[in-house]
């Protein structure tokens, strides 16, 4: 996804899993994903991969919004991600929001948290690093 794309644009994978931009918080898109069979793991719970995929989409969205505010139309490539699963993801709406800790010329470091009914009780978190390059 290009930095120039609208702030609420999401790639096909995110849309296929039912992710939407719920709202914009301080310039950063907050993603939401309703529970459905498409994202279910063992009965009644979210699949860890769907949670991981959502954290990544929130990391991309946060970084795109951050670069867009600085009018930097850079190419973004994921380098790595480390996901901590904190609680079982229940069969309910999940939210995820990223925070760009640092975005330099070549690298960006992003943190993401995902939560459900209680924002104080995250279900998963991750750090994700990106390589930035001129388009």
């Amino acid at each position, binding site marked *: 996804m290009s930095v120039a794309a609208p702030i609420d644009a999401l790639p096909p994978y995110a849309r296929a899993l039912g992710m939407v931009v719920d709202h914009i918080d301080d310039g950063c898109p907050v993603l939401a994903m309703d529970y459905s069979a498409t994202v279910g793991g063992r009965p009644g719970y979210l699949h860890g991969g769907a949670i991981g995929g959502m954290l990544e989409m929130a990391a991309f969205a946060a970084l795109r919004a951050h670069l867009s505010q600085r009018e930097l139309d850079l190419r973004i490539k994921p380098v790595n991600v*480390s996901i901590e699963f904190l609680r079982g993801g229940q069969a309910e709406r999940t939210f995820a929001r990223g925070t760009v800790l640092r975005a330099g010329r070549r690298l960006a470091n992003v943190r993401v948290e995902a939560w459900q009914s209680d924002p104080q009780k995250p279900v998963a978190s991750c750090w994700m690093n990106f390589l930035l390059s001129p388009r």
Partner: protein
Amino acid sequence: MEKDTDQLPRTGLVRAGVPFDPAKLGKLLNSNGHSGFIGMSYRDHGPDWVELGLPWREDLVGDPETGVLASGPIISLLDNATSMAAWVSQGEFRPQVTLDLRIDYLRAAARGKAIVARGECYRLRRTMAFVRGLAHDGDPSDPVAHATGIFMLVHGDEWAADGRDRAIRAEEK
């Protein structure tokens, strides 16, 4: 209903304590829910590893400009392959929860190519399974992603309806 097995903890689809046959149970685990949606399939296994596959699909793309698959399906595939590797290493199905999973993206997967992931359980302890995995899009010597993770193994009496939190609390004691 067999009463004795009914007392065993369940994870829903498969009862705990059931001998783990990846070819058979893998089909059940991979054909439901999210795994089924993204099209996972069983390929092969050994004493401590399991290999799964995933076709390229337009609706799983992460970058519409290049057609590169999102990394989410690769996370899911490595998650399932490493989970199953932990079960095949134990010889039976036991509930477990993912503590963490780290993935390094070595290069972008090519448009239109199926992904293959092999998960390996390289160390099994009483409470933890240490796993790693590699994903490629045709050539195992040129992988697209490398994963390392830890699963917490849940023992029978620690499992309940809200098994994960109970299990973790039990670990903390």
